[in-house]
């Protein structure tokens, strides 16, 4: 497992090639790359600044990957999250999960992304022509998390 928070960019091709490299038991590798979106009409985002709480981030991300590996068959996983100033179009986050079967790879990857969004201590500040402002948490992220609750 590889879990890193860094300022510099990452090479998706290199990272994906390294997930479970040489593991012939892998049948599928699901991944997600989040990018800085330029915003919507009337809300142009030129860049964002990502801040985090380093001591907690690492703990949360490790716990998250461990939880995914308990719920699904995971042979290897990589999570890279960037911090600092990122221009529109730049990569923010990579989550990649290698499993024997595709269903596990997809579910674990999406689970990590969804929970990361509501539990990992990162904060985004947007730079727009109107000035800077902190991004507010979205209710849809909580909805995305709810479907992963264990069924009692």
């Amino acid at each position, binding site marked *: 497992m590889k879990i890193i928070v860094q300022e510099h960019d990452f090479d998706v091709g290199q990272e994906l090639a390294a997930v479970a490299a040489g593991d012939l038991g892998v049948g599928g590798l699901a991944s997600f790359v*989040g990018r800085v979106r330029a915003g919507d009409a009337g809300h142009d985002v030129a860049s964002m600044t*990502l*801040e*985090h*709480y380093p*001591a*907690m981030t690492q*703990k949360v991300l490790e716990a998250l990957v461990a939880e995914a590996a308990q719920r699904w068959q995971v042979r290897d996983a990589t999570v890279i*999250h960037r911090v600092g100033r990122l221009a529109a179009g730049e990569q*923010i*986050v990579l989550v990649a999960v290698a499993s024997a079967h595709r269903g596990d790879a997809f579910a674990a990857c999406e689970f990590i*992304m969804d929970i*990361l*969004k*509501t*539990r*990992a*201590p*990162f*904060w*985004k*500040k947007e730079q727009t022509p109107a000035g800077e402002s*902190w*991004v*507010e*948490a*979205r209710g849809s992220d909580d909805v995305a998390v709810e479907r992963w609750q264990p069924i009692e």
Partner: protein
Amino acid sequence: MKVKLLYFASLRERFGTAEEILELPGEQSRVAMLVDVLRQRGAPWSELLSVDYPYRVAVNQELAGLISPLKDGDEVAIFPPVTGG
């Protein structure tokens, strides 16, 4: 007892500081008491650490609630809802 306080993102900016050491009465405390002490400073503390504002608290890097216990030397972080990913 003393705790180390950390503020992040909009709260760090509004409070004008990233961290401070806070002295609390007694040898044990709770998050609720800490928040009370901070609110007594007046605005912006009283405004932002209110039920109208969805602030989060972590004690020693674990999410905590108002009844979570505090002891000497704890690291307490107060921050807005996270927006990573």
